[in-house]
């Protein structure tokens, strides 16, 4: 499809979906590999990135494994999600902005139009971001565009760069940790990602270092028909701390786009990783056309006295399949999961977490808030597993659903497996509607019906939103508001 056609379609759809303000496309020349996935494509990707042999081998093994799964028709179907069959050979697995072929050395060399795109996204890529104190790695389609702030981080020995760069410059770290939390055999989508991932972010915080700023990656799918398969690996070495933010958007497309990312977190002894996501992939039109299919594997593993905390605000995507989890391997380690997932119009979300307690005195907290509106279907699926050696493990799960309107659905599927009698688990669940009494109360004070809904819903989500860094919390509130437009009033 030519660029001109693309832009036309995009404009047309924007008229219908004025609610999704991130739906612009950027007219940048792309270099694309042919559609479909096979060993040649994997080799091409690896070659484009000038990867060492071990990396290519790993990819090819993953592809072989995935091919085997394909033959067994092993695409997971246990989630409460309905979507048409995905044709994996009808997707572009590699698309890179052409102008980046000679990898820019600095921001000055980045295509100005791309910088403008980032401006529209509100990503602070220039001087502003120093004020904001955020280091950004922006992944545009599949290629990491620019990592800012790198120098300042380097002084402390912190590595924050694109995955491709990490493979080149820090192969020993990548080789040590890649696949250590999510092996390519983990699941269908993780295997596909392992074979074809084209970029992503890498962060390493050395022992005892507290990362002084928040690290951020912004993902954007731009090219039509492209799958995005990014790979993120974050390692907090002993006693290190890092807060990492991830934002995602995509332009409006009539056809659905596949996104299958893998995120691995390693928090060594006394390390702490706080990982926050605002997922705002294009959700599709009001009548359920298009939108991103979001199949993501996110998992972390803890050392002794270590901590991993996931916070997510999921408002986008037509389909969300995502279970950020923590393997609590170390004694006294802590895992947290805070989530707000919104499914409006015809969106479907099947999301939750797994907390696997292996170490003694391990502690996990799950707070899940699911909002269903329009014809949206929202499922919380969570597992808490206490293994025999996990003496005195505790878990607290709170799982709340809120219904807006009477055409939507909320479902809760908790799996609990306890194999140590000293464990203490609490599970609270609730389903509620925005009550007429609450609405009347707020409106009688002069607040409009829409704002009243919004206030009640964000208030209800507060336990999760307050876990986000401040600027992100503001953005999350705005997103919830925009995403609910049309569902209320």
């Amino acid at each position, binding site marked *: 499809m030519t660029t001109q056609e693309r832009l036309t379609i995009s404009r047309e759809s924007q008229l219908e979906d004025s609610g999704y303000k991130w739906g612009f496309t950027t007219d940048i020349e792309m270099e694309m590999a042919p559609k479909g996935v096979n060993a040649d494509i994997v080799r091409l990707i690896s070659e484009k990135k000038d990867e060492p042999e071990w990396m290519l081998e790993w990819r090819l093994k993953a592809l072989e494994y995935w091919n085997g799964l394909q033959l067994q028709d092993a695409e997971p179907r246990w989630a409460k999600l309905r979507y048409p069959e995905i044709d994996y050979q009808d997707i572009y697995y590699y698309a890179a902005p052409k102008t980046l072929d000679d990898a820019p050395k600095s921001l000055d060399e980045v295509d100005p139009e791309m910088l403008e795109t980032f401006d529209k996204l509100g990503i602070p890529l220039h001087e502003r971001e120093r004020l904001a104190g955020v280091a950004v790695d922006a992944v545009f389609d599949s290629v990491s565009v620019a990592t800012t702030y790198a120098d300042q981080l380097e002084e402390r020995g912190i590595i924050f760069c694109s995955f491709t760069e990490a493979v080149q410059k820090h192969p020993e770290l990548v080789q040590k940790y890649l696949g250590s939390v999510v092996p390519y055999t983990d699941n269908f989508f993780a295997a596909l990602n392992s074979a074809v991932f084209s970029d992503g972010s890498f962060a390493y915080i050395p022992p005892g270092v507290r990362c002084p700023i928040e690290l951020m990656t912004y993902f954007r799918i731009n090219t039509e028909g492209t799958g995005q398969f990014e790979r993120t690996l974050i390692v907090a070495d002993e006693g290190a701390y890092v807060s990492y933010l991830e934002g995602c958007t995509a332009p409006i497309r009539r056809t659905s786009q596949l996104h299958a990312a893998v995120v691995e977190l390693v928090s060594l002894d006394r390390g702490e990783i706080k990982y926050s996501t605002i997922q705002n992939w294009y959700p599709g039109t009001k009548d359920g056309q298009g939108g991103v299919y979001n199949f993501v594997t996110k998992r972390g593993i803890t050392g002794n006295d270590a901590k991993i905390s996931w916070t997510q605000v999921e408002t986008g995507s037509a389909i969300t399949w995502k279970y950020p989890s923590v393997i609590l391997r170390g004694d006294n380690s802590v895992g947290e999961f805070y989530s707000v997932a919104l499914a409006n119009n015809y969106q479907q979300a099947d999301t939750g977490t797994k907390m696997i307690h292996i170490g003694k005195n391990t502690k996990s907290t799950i707070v899940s808030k699911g909002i269903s509106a329009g014809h949206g279907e929202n499922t919380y699926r969570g597992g808490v597993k206490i293994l025999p050696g996990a003496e005195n493990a505790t878990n607290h799960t709170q799982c709340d659903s809120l219904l807006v309107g009477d055409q939507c659905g909320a479902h809760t599927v908790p799996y609990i497996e306890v194999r140590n009698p000293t464990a203490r688990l609490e599970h609270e669940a609730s389903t509620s509607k925005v*009550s007429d009494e609450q609405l009347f109360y707020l409106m*009688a004070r002069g607040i409009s019906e829409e*704002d009243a809904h919004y206030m009640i819903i964000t*208030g209800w989500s507060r336990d999760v939103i307050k876990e986000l860094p401040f600027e992100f919390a503001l953005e999350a509130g705005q997103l919830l508001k925009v995403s609910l437009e049309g569902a209320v009033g």
Partner: protein
Amino acid sequence: MLKIENLHAVVTDSEEEILKGIDLEVSPGEVHAIMGPNGSGKSTLANVLMGKPSYSVTDGDITVDGESIVELMPDARAHLGMFLAMQYPSEVPGVRPWQFLKAAKDAIDNANGQSKMSVRAFSKLFDEKVTETGINPDLIKRSLNEGFSGGEKKRNEMLQMQVLAPRIAIMDETDSGLDIDALQAVADGVNKMRSPDRSFVIVTHYQRLLHYVKPDVVHILVNGKIVETGGAPLAEKIEATGYRDYLTVR
């Protein structure tokens, strides 16, 4: 200022008629008390004035400054300067009283073409009124009405009334369930707010509150109709004899 003519209203779901032809006129600066036995329609009247969707007006009219408000949503009525202190204020998890009241103030100011009050100026006003109404400042840090006792909820309604400074303040059994200190605080608030351009409609079962807030006009509402209207002494008569006489007449 506020005029009610031949007002008939039903419960929206069941179509059961609760208000059966009410006439009432409240002039600027007046305090009207609506008294009546349980189930007479007092609270319904208060809620219908504010536009609660669970009631529907089937006949008659309500006007403010000569304009009908029957078709207006509750927020539009608030923008006209109407306020209802709720009998059972809702709990709203995760919403702070400050945040709620600032949003309300901004919405009303905006609808009246006024600029937003600065956070600083609003905070000052808010803190002042918190002190005046005698609300436990710790409560204000919680979610709106969550974990508040009955009395605290009513004080919180008075706080909102004082901050929003409505022209027409309707109070729905604000005095019920209050201890003597809280009752005194509510009365002080009302008395302080009394002014030539502000009117009050106080719905109450007992005469208690009227010991402290002297009404200009007292109406006795029985079975959806006003059966007697008089001055302050009428309330004292009720205290002595109850509603017996009205009920037997029917």
